[in-house]
């Protein structure tokens, strides 16, 4: 396929627009002064300071713990409920779909405030418990909707066959269903990790004195000035994300190559 110059420029413009902010942030994490607009010289000071800043590091650790716990819990709950929904009657499945859609469609601020009201009404102490609960509640639907399509692609009769051959329900789930839907489960898991890591609105209303996450800590800095140490930390996080994406792409690429060579061999014989 031939591409005109116009479309090339268009694509370049879009890509630049999407990615330039990140590069500006990375550049300014090496800036000597605190300025976010004037370049005054190259330095690693902010990275060094970051290592000694217990406030930011604690917040980053909190964020990470919450993200890991939430993504595990939400993935398990979401997968199980997706499987449950799949075996419901058409009508009930529609009802469930609507109910699962609600937290996604509902503005985060409404979810956040209502969760806060519920927690105070139930006399919960705001902290890790409430933060994790809140994140799980708002994230389960994403897992459900990334698993459900995979279930629908699956041949339903496989389950019946397995049961006819003597599998119990558990065995069917682990040996037949799970392998079929695992890409959906994995993508659901990753979505939840990403959402939980950067959630601000819901965390704002449901976190407590022990569980300040990174987005909240950064927001609190706006009274004085957001420290360039945050740039340094963001750069590190960005690099980790980049490496993960590269690794995944590489694996996929290897997989495709293996398949192709396999297919070629098949043709040859």
């Amino acid at each position, binding site marked *: 396929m031939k591409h005109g110059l116009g479309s090339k420029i268009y694509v370049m413009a879009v890509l630049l627009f999407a990615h330039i902010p990140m590069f500006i942030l990375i550049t300014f994490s090496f800036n000597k002064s605190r300025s976010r607009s004037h370049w005054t010289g190259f330095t690693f000071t902010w990275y060094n300071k970051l290592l000694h800043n217990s*406030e930011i590091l604690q917040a980053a650790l909190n964020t990470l713990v919450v993200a890991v716990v939430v993504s595990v819990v939400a993935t*398990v709950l979401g997968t199980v409920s997706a499987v449950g929904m799949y075996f419901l009657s058409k009508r009930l499945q529609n009802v469930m779909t609507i109910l699962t859609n609600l937290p996604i469609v509902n503005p985060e601020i409404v979810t956040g405030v209502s969760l806060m009201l519920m927690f105070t009404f139930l006399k919960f102490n705001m902290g890790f418990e409430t933060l994790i609960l809140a994140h799980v509640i708002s994230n389960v639907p994403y897992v459900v909707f990334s698993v459900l399509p995979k279930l629908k692609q699956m041949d339903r009769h496989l389950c019946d066959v397995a049961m006819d051959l003597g599998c119990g329900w558990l065995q069917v*789930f682990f040996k037949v269903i799970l392998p079929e839907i695992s890409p959906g489960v994995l993508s659901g898991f990753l979505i939840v990790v990403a959402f939980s890591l950067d959630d601000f609105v819901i965390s704002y209303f449901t976190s407590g004195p022990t569980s300040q996450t990174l987005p909240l800590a950064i927001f*609190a800095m706006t009274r004085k000035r957001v420290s360039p140490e945050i740039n340094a930390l963001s750069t590190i996080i960005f690099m980790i994300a980049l490496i993960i994406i590269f690794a995944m792409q590489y694996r996929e690429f290897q997989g495709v190559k293996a398949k192709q060579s396999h297919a070629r061999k098949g043709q040859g014989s």
Partner: protein
Amino acid sequence: MRNLAILATGLVLLAVIVAKQSMLYNKKNAKISINVSNWGEFMSNGSNSLMNVNYEFEKLTGVHVNYTTVSSNEEAYAKIKGGGVSYDVVILSDYMIARMIAEKRLAKLNYANIPNIVNIMPNLKKLNYDPTGEYSVAYAWGTVGIVYNSKEIKEEVDGFNILWDEKFKNEILMFSNPRDAFAIALRKLNISFNTRRKEDILAAAKELKKQKHLIQAYVMDEIFDKMQTEEALIAPYYSGDVINMMNDNQNLKFVFPKEGTNRFVDAACIPINAKYKEAAELYINFLCEPGVALNNALYGNCSTPNIKAFDLLPENVKNNKVAYPDEQTLKNTQSYQFISTELEEFMDSLWVEIMVADENNNVWVMPVFIFVCAAATISLGVLRSHNKRQRV
């Protein structure tokens, strides 16, 4: 199906246990942990080769500190009032402390546990937000003044009037929080910013509305970049932060407005529902240690209320007239008082009105928009099911 249910419950239980474990991780070594709330970037935390205050406190006392930061008094207030959270030490500004005292949300301090109170400057004790001095210990202070770019503004800047000058349209920045913004408008009208009359507040709101078309942006921390890069030329701001800006741009100058201005005090206090009041007092006492106060003042770039810490400051900071103005200037300042919950809410609602007001904005736009969306969705759904039926 039953097995599946059992499996699900099992996994949920497992997850709960994992969650519980992770919650315990930052409580494990300390018998007591206190919850502390402060502004962001306001306490020395070990970077800049300064002291890590919370760490030193933990090392000294064995009391664990859960340190959280907020961006505004209102946010801290909402958290304390909302329940579900009990803080042991909160650092708030003067007017919010007055409000909390009026609403009986603060505990009286036991000064037997805070011997370092002697280090606090006498003129920062028993100010009008806490007339008896029973509830709060000053942590930092400063004034609100006008920072402007002397390269671009040749006129003499001496008062808040300049923030209403048509000549500087789109070059002016303004506070994005209601209390500070109203205070400026009230001083411009030569009314005390602790006025308890509704008419005064309405008049100030009118002034702020008049000013809106001149304002480039309502800001908090964006002000640093905007002033340093000369994107904006004039703004009211807190003295300590202005010193930061002046260090980065030599053209910036600071003036104390002739109308008189606000001298703010941020002070530590203990909410009435604090779990460990004694540990909290220990913490406040620790904050009054000269060395600790010095580190905090250097880190946050605010004026210290601590006499001994002041003596330890480098000469150029000590003699900085922006941070430590002379008595004459200070006489022309006032601190915020709590006016009344009702009036503050009135102020908040007027502020929201000023912020969202747009002459061309119609109150019906939102409802009509929602209605049209709903109607479109429903009619699309009906149309689709109709088409489906026809096809069948």
